[in-house]
């Protein structure tokens, strides 16, 4: 898997950037104060040596918030992608393997989930539930993200079912779980990884969107919450506090870009004609 990433320069760069962001998000908070106290004498200060990115509307350092604020966003993205991938593999394989009415039912549900406009549904759900835990957010984001992968897993299992090595495994009377786990999934590993990354990208898009609209409760200083505060508290009108808006925008965009370039290198592996010579 890693070797396949190193084959494409852009994909490898994306991977490195992503790994660095995770490192900062995981390790960074141990070196920064977890609670930033309000200082009304230092509201919207311009960048300086003490505050490399300036301060926010409560006089709190923006750079520290940036370091602490990545964890929640990345965590929810990974959790959502994990939940969605699990659903897709289990039910996709089940549909293809069992066939009949189970298959029709799963396919119909997939088609329906695929057509429901997700952000709209998420906004409505967010107005009904309190989305204050990363698990609830991840469950809701991942709970609607599985249809694409499920379709592909189902199609793959269908076509691989007839292959000789799978038939051989069947003749040896190895269980369905064994065949899917040992024979079919390894063949799809790159594809599943690619989908995992795509799902993360979409989940982060939706998550930050929910924060921006104020639909996810703002309990900590994550990038989405920073964006919301910067936008609603007028930081955009002062050129001194421009980094309050720009820092989260750039961080989220770089995160998304690193994920997209990783996707692209997975695509090149799956479709060798796209590969750089």
């Amino acid at each position, binding site marked *: 898997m890693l070797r396949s990433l190193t084959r494409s320069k852009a994909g490898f760069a994306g991977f490195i950037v992503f790994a660095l962001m995770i490192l900062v998000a995981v390790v960074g908070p141990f070196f920064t104060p977890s609670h930033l106290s309000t200082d009304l004498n230092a509201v919207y200060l311009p960048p300086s040596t003490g505050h490399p990115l300036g301060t926010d509307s409560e006089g709190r350092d923006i750079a520290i918030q940036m370091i602490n604020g990545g964890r929640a966003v990345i965590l929810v993205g990974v959790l959502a992608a994990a939940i969605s991938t699990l659903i897709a593999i289990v039910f996709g394989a089940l549909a293809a393997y069992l066939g009949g009415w189970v298959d029709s039912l799963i396919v119909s549900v997939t*088609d329906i989930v695929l057509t429901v*406009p997700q*952000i*709209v549904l998420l906004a409505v*759900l967010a107005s009904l539930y309190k989305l204050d835990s990363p698990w609830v957010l991840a469950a809701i984001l991942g709970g609607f993200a599985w249809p694409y992968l499920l379709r592909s897993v189902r199609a793959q299992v269908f076509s691989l079912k007839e292959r000789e090595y799978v038939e051989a495994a069947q003749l040896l009377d190895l269980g369905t779980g064994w065949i899917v786990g040992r024979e079919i999934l390894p063949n799809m590993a790159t594809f599943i990884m690619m989908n995992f990354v795509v799902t993360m990208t979409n989940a982060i898009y939706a998550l930050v969107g929910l924060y921006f*609209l104020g639909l996810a409760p703002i309990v900590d200083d994550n990038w989405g919450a920073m*964006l919301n505060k910067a936008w609603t508290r007028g930081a955009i009108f002062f*050129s001194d506090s421009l980094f309050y*808006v720009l820092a989260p925008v750039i961080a989220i965009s770089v995160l998304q870009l690193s994920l997209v370039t990783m996707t692209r290198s997975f695509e090149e592996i799956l479709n060798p004609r*796209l590969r750089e010579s």
Partner: protein
Amino acid sequence: MAILKRYAVRRVLKALLTVYLVATGTFFLVRMLPGNPVEVYINTQMSQYGVSYAEASSQAAGLFSFNPNEPLIQQYGDFLAGLVRGDLGESLLAPGTSVLDIVFEYLPWTLFSVGLGVLISFALGITLGMLMAYWRESWLDHALSLIGSLLQSVPNYLLAMLVVVFFGVQLEILPIADMRGAYSPGVTPNLSFDFLSDVMYHAGLPITIYVLTTIGGWMLVMKSSTVETLGEDYVTVARARGLTDGRIRSAYVGRNAVLPLVPQLAITLGFVVGGSILVEQVFQYQGIGYLLFQSVQRRDYPVLQGILLVVTIAVVAANLIADLLYGRLDPRVRLNGEE
């Protein structure tokens, strides 16, 4: 012809089923939850205005177009009956205004801006994608790939925010405040040139954002699709037959390469309609996303339910059209739908 008809009937039934299930889902979401909006409404009416439970629940019944004291099955029946008549209840905050009227006031602006944005992006994207495939490994290909990846990665609402921050507030190039809304105050909607240019003045920014953030995807997908098509035997045969490059490009490569992108058009449309909530909020463009945000803020559940339903219907309809179109364009699809 019979095959096509059966395929169409199956797709229409599936679309209706989707709408029915989403309607049912929202019905139970709004009513079954502990502390559901109906209960909350009844409780606030009782505590704030001192009305009796019976009175409060009859008010709630009128607003949500159902009676909370009836058995759930009967409520559900009434709700579905109302749905068939196009009755989605009344707004909580503007009693007497039907949800459908409110939704239809905002929806056209979203459909217009998103539809136009997606179409422009599709047309530009497939053209550039084909160029990239033909001049693979050239500087053009590399430059467009880079730009495409960059644009595709930045979430549309963040790009919109950057436009507002830089061009609107800091550099003061764009009159952001004037560009809010769907059209300028004092202008009456009609088919004159003035009105249409005013509409474009207000829709310009959201449309630009939709184009910029979706074009990268089209370019890259079209490139890989074209590259794949160029490797097909029939293209080699066409070359061997001595057909002109122009004819091969349009009749053999172009058509076949665009084909797999058609179903994606509908999916993108759905995705962008969803994303419009965020973009419209940034630009304060008065489409369905703006209305959704307002309704969420005010906890106007009947309107929320109506928006979810109407947007779903719009997306389902777009999918249906794309599927039927695809079935006409590619006969293999409707044969598979037959099995």
